[in-house]
C-alpha cells in the first residue's frame, strides 16, 4: 500500500492560553512512500517525526493537508478504519493479558463479516507469534518477558490483523545495544517476509541507515532530504544532512572557493571546477583522507586510534569546526605514519626515544590529500550543497534512478531552519510557510504594531516572520548544541577501551538529545562579541573559528603564538564553559572533557599542561605510536617541528 502525504502541516496550540504562540511540529510535509518498502523517518528529537507517524496512524489529526493510502483519502478516517498496525515506543502491551490474549485482542474486535471463529483467531495469532518467534511464550504475561520479547509481541499484535501499513515509533530505543542490533535485523526480516509498507521512526542514524529502503531526514518539521541511505550519505543536500549522517561524523571546515580552487585556511586543497567564488563550509568524510607527505591539507596530529581493520588519525586544524579532525585510514597504510622518515607523510624531525618523546611530539604535522567525491561543499549562507566537478552528474543520475523506482526525490530548498528556532520552541519555527489564519493574524498584528521592522523582539523571539527570513547571517558558526553534540560524539568515540568502542554509536546518540534539549539562549550573542573582540586584535584565523576565538582572549596576549595550537582537551572545555547554562549540560560537557583528559593522562604520564607548548593531547602521540608499532619502535623517527 502506497502512502502519500500531501502538504501535511501540524500546529500545536500553545499550552499557555494567554500567549497566542504555537508550535509548528510538521511543516508542509510532502512525501510518497512506495508500496512494500521500509522507510525511516530520521531526525533529532523534536523534529516532528513521531507527530508525522501519529498523523499517518490517525491518532492525531493534521492541521492541514491530506493523507492517502493507495488512492483512498484517509485524512478524516478514524484510526481503526485505516488498517494500520502501530508499535509504540514502550509497546503498550496490556499488562493484565497474556501474550496470546494480547495478540488476539485486535482480532476479537473485528465485527460483522470480518468476524472470525475462535479457531481462526487462534491460528492467526499463532502464525503471527511464529513470525516473530515468540510461540513458546504465549501463556506469559508481558511483565515476565524481556524487553526484546515484549517488542516482538508488540509487533505480532500489530501484524496479526494484517495491516496495510505498519508503523513503528522508535521501537528500539528501550533495548540495550546488542538487542537493538538483533531486533532491527528481525524487523527487517519480518518486513521483507510480509511485504507490508512500513514506516519507522528513529533518531538513530545508524539504525535508520542499516534497515531502511529509504530514509527521510527531518529537521524542525521540515523534510531535509529523502533517498536511499547510501545515496543520502554520499550526496547530502545540505550541511545538516551531512552532519547528521555518519559515524564518526563528517569533518567540517570553513573555507572558500577562489578561481575554481577550494581553500581550507590558506591551503589550496582541491580543484573545484565550475564553482563561483564564495565562502563555504567544507565537509570531508573521515574516509575521504589520503595520507600523503606532499598532501595539501595539513593538520596537527593529536593521536592515532588503532581499531584493527583500520586506524583513525586524530588531528586538529584551525579551520575545523569540529574540535578534532578524524580521518579513517586503512590499517595497511599505517606504516606510512609510523615507519621510517623517508616515506612518511608525518613530518618527524627527531627520534622518538624516552623522555625526548614528549618534546618530540610537538607540532607533528599530518598531511592529507582528499578524495574529491568525499569532499562536500556547502554554501556558507544557505548551508545548501554546492556541487563541483562530476558530483552534479552523479547527483542527477541518482535522482533519475530514484524517480524510476517511483520514489520522488524531496529535498529542502531555501534557508534551513536554524537552531535558534530550536532553542526557543515557541518561536514560529521555520518562517516561510504558515497557516493562512496565522498569516492573517500576523498581518492584523502588523497593522497595529509599528515594530514590524524589528524582526527579532526583545526576548529573542522571531516576530512578524512573513518577510523576515530566518536569521542566517548571524555568527557564521555558533557553538550551538549541535557543535557540542559533535564534540561529545567525537570524544566519546575516542575513548580507547573496547567496551566503549562497542557502545560508541549508542553513547554518541545518547549524548546528543541531552545536549540538544538544553535550552540555550546565550551562545548566540556570545560568540559574536568574542569575535568582534578578536577581529579588533587582528587575529584573522580566529574569525572563522569561534572556538579558538573564545579561547584566545582567555589566554594572556604574550602566549599568542602558543595559543595557535589549540588542544582537543581544552577545546571542549572552553566550549562547554561558554555555552553551559544548565546543570545537566555541564555534566555532559564535563564528561567529554574528562574522557579527553583521561586519555593523555593514561598514556603520557607527565604532561605539564600549564604551558601551551606541552599540550596534553599532543603528548599522547608517541606513546600510542610506541604501542602500536612495536616492531618499528626503535626506528621511529620523530622530529620536533621547530616552528616556535
Amino acid at each position, binding site marked *: 500500500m502506497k502512502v502519500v502525504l500531501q502538504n501535511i502541516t501540524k500546529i500545536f496550540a500553545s499550552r499557555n492560553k494567554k500567549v497566542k504562540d504555537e508550535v509548528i511540529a510538521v511543516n508542509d510535509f510532502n512525501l510518497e512512500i512506495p508500496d512494500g518498502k521500509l522507510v525511516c523517518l530520521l531526525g533529532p528529537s523534536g523534529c516532528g517525526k513521531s507527530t508525522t507517524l501519529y498523523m499517518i*496512524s*490517525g*491518532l492525531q489529526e493534521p492541521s492541514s493537508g491530506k493523507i492517502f493510502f493507495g488512492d483512498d483519502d484517509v485524512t478524516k478516517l*478514524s*484510526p*481503526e*478504519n485505516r488498517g*494500520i*498496525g*502501530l508499535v*509504540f515506543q*514502550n509497546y*503498550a502491551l*496490556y*499488562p*493484565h*493479558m497474556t501474550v496470546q490474549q494480547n495478540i488476539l*485482542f*485486535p482480532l*476479537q*474486535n*473485528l465485527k460483522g463479516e470480518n468476524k472470525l471463529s475462535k479457531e481462526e483467531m487462534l491460528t492467526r495469532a499463532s502464525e503471527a507469534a511464529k513470525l516473530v518467534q515468540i510461540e513458546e511464550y504465549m501463556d506469559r504475561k508481558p511483565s515476565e518477558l524481556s524487553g526484546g520479547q515484549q517488542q516482538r509481541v508488540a509487533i505480532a*499484535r500489530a501484524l496479526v*490483523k494484517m495491516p496495510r501499513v505498519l508503523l513503528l515509533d522508535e521501537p528500539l530505543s528501550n533495548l540495550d545495544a546488542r538487542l537493538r542490533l538483533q531486533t532491527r535485523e528481525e524487523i527487517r526480516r519480518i518486513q521483507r517476509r510480509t511485504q507490508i509498507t512500513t514506516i519507522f521512526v528513529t533518531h538513530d542514524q545508524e539504525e535508520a541507515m542499516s534497515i531502511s529502503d529509504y530514509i527521510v531526514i527531518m529537521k524542525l518539521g521540515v523534510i531535509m532530504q529523502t533517498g536511499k541511505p547510501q545515496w543520502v550519505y554520499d550526496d547530502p543536500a545540505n550541511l545538516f544532512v551531512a552532519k547528521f549522517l555518519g559515524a564518526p561524523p563528517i569533518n567540517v571546515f570553513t573555507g572558500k572557493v577562489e578561481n575554481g580552487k577550494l581553500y581550507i585556511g590558506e591551503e589550496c586543497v582541491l580543484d573545484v571546477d565550475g564553482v563561483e567564488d564564495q565562502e563555504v563550509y567544507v565537509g570531508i568524510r573521515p574516509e575521504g583522507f589520503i595520507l600523503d607527505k606532499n598532501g595539501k591539507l595539513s593538520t596537527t596530529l593529536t593521536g592515532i586510534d588503532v581499531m584493527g581493520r583500520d586506524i583513525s588519525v586524530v588531528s586538529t586544524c584551525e579551520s575545523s569546526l569540529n574540535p578534532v579532525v578524524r580521518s579513517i585510514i586503512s590499517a595497511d597504510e599505517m606504516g606510512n605514519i609510523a615507519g621510517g622518515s623517508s616515506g612518511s607523510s608525518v613530518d618527524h624531525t627527531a627520534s622518538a626515544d624516552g623522555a625526548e618523546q614528549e618534546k618530540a611530539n610537538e607540532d607533528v604535522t599530518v598531511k592529507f590529500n582528499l578524495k574529491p567525491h568525499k569532499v562536500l561543499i556547502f554554501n556558507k549562507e544557505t548551508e545548501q550543497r554546492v556541487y563541483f566537478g562530476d558530483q552534479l552528474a552523479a547527483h542527477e543520475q541518482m535522482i533519475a534512478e530514484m524517480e524510476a523506482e517511483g520514489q520522488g526525490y524531496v529535498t529542502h530548498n531555501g534557508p534551513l531552519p536554524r537552531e535558534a528556532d530550536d532553542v526557543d520552541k515557541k518561536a514560529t519555527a521555520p518562517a516561510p510557510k504558515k497557516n493562512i489564519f496565522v498569516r492573517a493574524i500576523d498581518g492584523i498584528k502588523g497593522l497595529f504594531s509599528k515594530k514590524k521592522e524589528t524582526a527579532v523582539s526583545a526576548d529573542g523571539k522571531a516576530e512578524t516572520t512573513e518577510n523576515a527570513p530566518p536569521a542566517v547571517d548571524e555568527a557564521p558558526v555558533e557553538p550551538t548544541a549541535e557543535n557540542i553534540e559533535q564534540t561529545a560524539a567525537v570524544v566519546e568515540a575516542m575513548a580507547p577501551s573496547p567496551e566503549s568502542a562497542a557502545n560508541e554509536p549508542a553513547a554518541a546518540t545518547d549524548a546528543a538529545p541531552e545536549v540538544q534539549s538544553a535550552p540555550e539562549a546565550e551562545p548566540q550573542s556570545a560568540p559574536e562579541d568574542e569575535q568582534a573582540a578578536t577581529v579588533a586584535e587582528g587575529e584573522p584565523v580566529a574569525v572563522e573559528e569561534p572556538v579558538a576565538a573564545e579561547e584566545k582572549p582567555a589566554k594572556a596576549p604574550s602566549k599568542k603564538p602558543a595559543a595557535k595550537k589549540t588542544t582537543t582537551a581544552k577545546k571542549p572545555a572552553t566550549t562547554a564553559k561558554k555555552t553551559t547554562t544548565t546543570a545537566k549540560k555541564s555534566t555532559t560537557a564535563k564528561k567529554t572533557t574528562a574522557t579527553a583528559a583521561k586519555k593523555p593522562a593514561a598514556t603520557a604520564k607527565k604532561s605539564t599542561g600549564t604551558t601551551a607548548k606541552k599540550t596534553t593531547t599532543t603528548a599522547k602521540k608517541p606513546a600510542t605510536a610506541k604501542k602500536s608499532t612495536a616492531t618499528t619502535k626503535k626506528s621511529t623517527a620523530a622530529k620536533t617541528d621547530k616552528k616556535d
Partner: protein
Amino acid sequence: MAKTSTKNQWKAWLYLLPTLVLLGVFTVWPIINTVRMSLLEGYNGLAMIRGETFEFGFANFVDVATYAGFINCLGNTLLLCVITVPISTMLALLIAVALNSIKFIRKGMQTIFFLPYVTNSIAIGMVFMAMFSMVGGSATNAPDSVGIINNIIKAFGGKPINWVNGKISGYDPSERWANMAVLIIYIVWNALPFKILVLLGGLQGVNKQYYDAAKIDGTSRFRTFWRITVPLLSPMIAYVVITGFIGGFKEYSSVVGIFGNNMGPAHTNFRTNMNTMVGYIYDSLKDNNQGQASAAALILFAIIFVVTMINLYVSKKKVHY
C-alpha cells in the same frame, strides 16, 4: 554492639513510652476488656461497682444471637452492605471514567461529587429526612405537608409514599422497603466521593497509550472499558470494595440522621425498625448491658473479618497488580 544496645535499651523504651501508654490505654486494654466483658454472663457496669460478681460463660453470645432485635439489626446491616457496596462502586466507577474523559468542567464536578465527604452525616441525614418526609395526616386524611420528593411524585400524578414517617395506625411491612430505599440512596450518595476520588486517581495513572493502542485496534467503547479500564483499575476497585464493606457493616449515623433516635419510623419497634449492628451495640451500652454489647461487638468483628477475607481471596484471583 550487643552490649551497647542493652545498655541503652531503657532509652528506647523511654522514647516509645508515650505511644505505648496511649495505645495500651485506648486500644489494647479496650480490646481485652471487651473480650472479658463478653465472657462474663450478664455483665453490667453498675452492678460490678455494687460488688456483684459474674459467672464466666458464653451466655452473652447466646442471648445476643437469639434476641429478635439483634436478628433484625443483623439483617438490616447485611442487606445494606450487599445492596449499597456494589451500587456505589459501579456508580463511582462510571462517574470517575466520565470525569476522566472530560476536560472542561472536571474541576467543578469533582468538587460537587466530593461535597458529601466533607459534610456532617447527621446533618445530611436530617436534610434527607426533610426531603422524604410526610408530616401529619393519616391513612384516611390527606397529609398536611409533604417533602420535596413526595411533591415531585404528586406533581407527576403519583401518590405520596411514606418514606420515613410510618402510618399512625400501625406497622405495615410493605413500607419497610420505602424506608430501606431512603437509607440506601443516602448511603450510596454518601459513599460515592471517596470511591470516586480513589478511582479517579487510579484512572489518571493509567498509561494513555493503552487507549491509543485499543483505538487503533478498533476496540468498542464498552470493550475498552471492560477489557482495559476495569482490569487496569482492579487494584483500586478491590480497595474500594473492601473498605466499602467494612464501612457498610459499621453503618449507624445515617440511620440516626434520617430516622432519629427511634432508628425507624415512629410506629416501629426493636423488631421492625431500621436499626443496625452498631446501633444495637450502642443501645445495649445505653441500657448498661455491657456484656451483651461486647458480645455483639465481637460478633460484628468476626463478620467483618470473614467478609474481608473473602474479599481478599476473590481479589487475589481477579485483581491484576
